[in-house]
Each structure stands twice: as structure tokens, then as C-alpha cells.
């Protein structure tokens, strides 16, 4: 019987979730785009109001489902529901926004349990356009109790999205590996 696994892409509106999924999905992602009525939040014309959905076929007939969470915080109930059973979450940030950390705040809080149980990785887009550096994100996360990789990425590039996936997988694998070790007196 084939099984399905789930990977989440989250972050504020305009951070690039739809683009990231499109970069790695086997087929064009299914998006539920609608006219953006929340111009105060972000100026883009269209935004995701439901899920973005893409998938990747795995050996043995299994599937990896890629879900892009809607960026608006009024959909935070979806974020928590979607976390159940997910392998981990790829969090995307837009460094060109006036206050990117404030934008991230609600998402990070919503996915705290998933990050603690499995893994989280943060991709910062448009890194050269903002006043914050990667270290600022890392310190901000640490202050909220998260130790997650933070990378400068351009999610239009498949290899940058794969960096995020690779880091996520390595966190899960090494956590399991270390759980299989013990400290022993020599």
C-alpha cells in the first residue's frame, strides 16, 4: 500500500511559498489564488487563500505532498491542522519587508510544536534588500527558543529550495542518529 508524507511551506504573504513549491514539485502546483484584498499586508495582486499543493513521487509508489500554507494570519487555524503528521516545515521570510521578523512571528509560533518534534528551516529571500542580516534572524529565533538553520535563498532557484530540504532532512536524520547513541564511561 502506498503511503503519503507531508512537507509544509509557511511564511508571510509574498515570501515565495508558491514559487518554492513550483521549483521542486513533479508537476505544476495547484494553487488557490485570489485577488489580494489585503494590500496593507502586501502589494502583490494575487495571493494564496487556501493551500498550494505540489507532490513528488517517491520510490515504491509513495508520495511526498508539498503544502504551501496561506500567508495571512487569519488562516492560522489551517497552519495548526496541517502540522499534524508533517515531516517538517520550511519557513520563508521576505527580507525586503519593513519588519520581516514581525511578519514571521505568528508563523513561527504556530509551528513551534512541529519544529520541536521534527525540524524547521528558515529561508530568507531578498537578503540584500533589507537591513537585517542572517545573524539577526538566528538571534531572533534563538530568543524564541528555536535553533534552526537560516539561509539566504532565492526560491526561484531549484537548488536553493533543495538546500532547505536537505537541511531539513539532515536535522531529522541526525536527531534520530543521536537518539540512537548514548554517553558511556570509557
Amino acid at each position, binding site marked *: 500500500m502506498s*503511503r503519503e*508524507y507531508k512537507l509544509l511551506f509557511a511564511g508571510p504573504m509574498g515570501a515565495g511559498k508558491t514559487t518554492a513549491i513550483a521549483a*521542486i514539485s513533479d508537476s505544476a502546483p495547484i494553487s488557490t489564488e485570489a485577488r489580494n484584498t489585503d494590500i496593507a499586508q502586501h502589494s502583490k495582486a494575487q495571493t494564496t487563500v487556501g493551500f498550494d499543493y505540489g507532490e*513528488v*513521487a*517517491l*520510490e*515504491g509508489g*509513495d508520495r*511526498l505532498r508539498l503544502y504551501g500554507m496561506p500567508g495571512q494570519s487569519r488562516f492560522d487555524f489551517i497552519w495548526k491542522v496541517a502540522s499534524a503528521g508533517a*515531516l517538517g516545515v520550511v519557513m520563508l521570510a521576505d527580507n525586503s519587508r519593513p519588519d520581516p521578523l514581525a511578519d514571521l512571528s505568528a508563523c513561527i509560533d504556530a509551528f513551534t510544536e512541529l519544529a520541536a518534534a521534527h525540524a524547521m528551516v528558515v*529561508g*530568507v529571500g531578498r*537578503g540584500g534588500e533589507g537591513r537585517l*542580516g*542572517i*545573524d539577526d534572524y*538566528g538571534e531572533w529565533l534563538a530568543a524564541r527558543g528555536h*535553533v*534552526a*538553520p*537560516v*539561509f*539566504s*535563498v532565492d526560491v526561484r532557484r531549484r*537548488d*536553493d529550495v*533543495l*538546500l532547505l*530540504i*536537505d*537541511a531539513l*532532512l*539532515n*536535522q*531529522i*536524520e*541526525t*536527531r*534520530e*542518529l*543521536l*537518539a*540512537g*547513541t*548514548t*554517553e*558511556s*564511561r*570509557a
Partner: protein
Amino acid sequence: MYLSTTAAQAPHQLRRISCIGFDWRAEVSLRETLALLNGRTTDQWQYTDEPVADVLIYDSSNALAQAVVRRTTADQARACICFPSNNQDQGELALRYPFGASRLIRCLNHASQSLAGHGGSAADRESLSQRLDNAMALPRIEAIALRVGRHQGLLYPASRRIAWPVALDIDEIAGMLGGDVELTALGSADRALHDAITAQAVVEGPAEALLWAIGMTRSGGQLLGRIQTRQAYRLRRWPDFGVMGRRSADLRCTALLMQRALSVGELTQLSGLPSAVITAFLNAASLCGLLVADTASRAPERILAGSNSRFGGVLQRIRTAFALHDAA
């Protein structure tokens, strides 16, 4: 393309081979041809993505590849095999694409001979990584002047920032790694020289990508003197691999050291990576100021056999689906 090899190993040992500046089709072809040569060469050969491989094959028409090979063979005894750019080079260490098995076998056997004759003397020279680490550890140092060719800039050890005449992008870093790097430690008495260089080095930014690259490619296979093999280390934070490029081995080592302090041996055992890869990783992390000695009293790690994964083989199958190289 040329093949380059590291210092002496006993005959019939497993040797590692990598390539620089290849078209991906040539790389895939090389991997597949190597897999077919099992038992037909003097030594056993295994393909690796690591720049610390025993043998490097490079495209002689690629200037960047030439520079990297020139530098890595200066830091560490190697033999090189090339893809010649024209018909002139027909030596024993020259290959053509598509690879012929017989020619590849001859090249690899010649490389084995070349390696056996090196005797490891080059490994005794102090690497750029070590010289840079020594300079950064000097007391009362304010900056380190770096000169590569016509370019000169200032590295500030405390902040790990660098001022350089041009933007320090990946091409500029590659050029620096391919050249001879002169280092001069500057203290408060060297203000005039400092100011003269500052007038030219007008682009300032983080030096992490440069320091990481130096640690990875200019360590000469030797751990920095400050890194003690029995000491456990952890990482202060994740390096920005978005800037430095994705390598699964780096991600795996980082993920381990972000979760637990490990000694060099423990990291080697848990990661399943060759010790040369671990050496380069730790040197790079140390130069970037990310490697922290764990002061807490601890006992060695012991891997428990038979631990079950909650995810079974799905993580490996995800890697396969995305063609992510297995770090182990």
C-alpha cells in the same frame, strides 16, 4: 581535464576521485565508468564530491578549474588528470570524453604510481588555513592584510568582516583561492599601512564565505593546530550555506554539531564521512569562529546498534527523488 592526487597511501588501497569544471554529463559518465572498473585497476577508486579527494580530474580549458587544481596540488601532494583543450596533451594523465574504459584504467594506474612516489612531503608545509588561523590568534591584532595578485584588502578577525577592492562574490573568492595569498598582521602601530589599504579596499562585507572556502580547500589535509582531537566541539550557529553553496557533508556535520558536542573521532564515526572531509569542515568552521569547545564534563558517545527510525527509509527515498547526494 586533468586528474590530481594526494599524498602517499599504500598500494591497493581505496582512493577517492573527484572532478572540477565538468559538464554534468561528463561527471555522470565518469561515475558510471568508474563503477564498471572494479578490480581492473591497481587501486580501488571511489567517486566523491569533496575537493579533498586523492585525485582530481579537471577540464584544462576551464581557467577556474586550473586555478583550483594548481592551488590544491600546492597545498597537498596530488596527481592530476586532464581533459586536454586541444590535441597537444597526450600524456599518461590525459583523458577524453566520452571516457574509454581502457584509457581511464591506464590513467588511474598511472595516477596510483604518481601518488605512491609523492611520499607525502607536501603535507608537511603549513597550509593557508593554518597561517591564517595563526595570524588571527595573534594578540593585539587589529586586522590582517591580504594580498592576492594586484588586489589587497583587510580582514578584521574580531568581526569576521573583510574590506576588499571589489565585491567578494564566488568568482572573486575562487580567484583568491587559486592564487598565492600573502598575509600580514596589522596592529595599532601599523596605522599608516592600514589606512593605505583601506583607501583601496572600498567594499566591506562578511568574510564568512571566504573563510569557509579557505578552510575547505586550503587546509592541506591537516587539522588546525588549535583543534584538539579529544576535545568535544559544537557549532555556535548554522553557517549560511545559501551563500557558500550546498554540500550534503557540510549539512550533515553541522546538523550533528548543532545538536551535540562531539570529538573529531565521534563526528567522523557518526557522520560516516571520510576523515579528510571532517578535517576540512572543522577547519572551515573554526576559521569562521563557529566552532566552540564544549567545556562541560562528558563521556564519549557510543553508537547503539539496531536503533529504529520512525521514518523508515522515507528520508533516503526523498533524497533520491530530489537527487540529493547522500552525505554518508
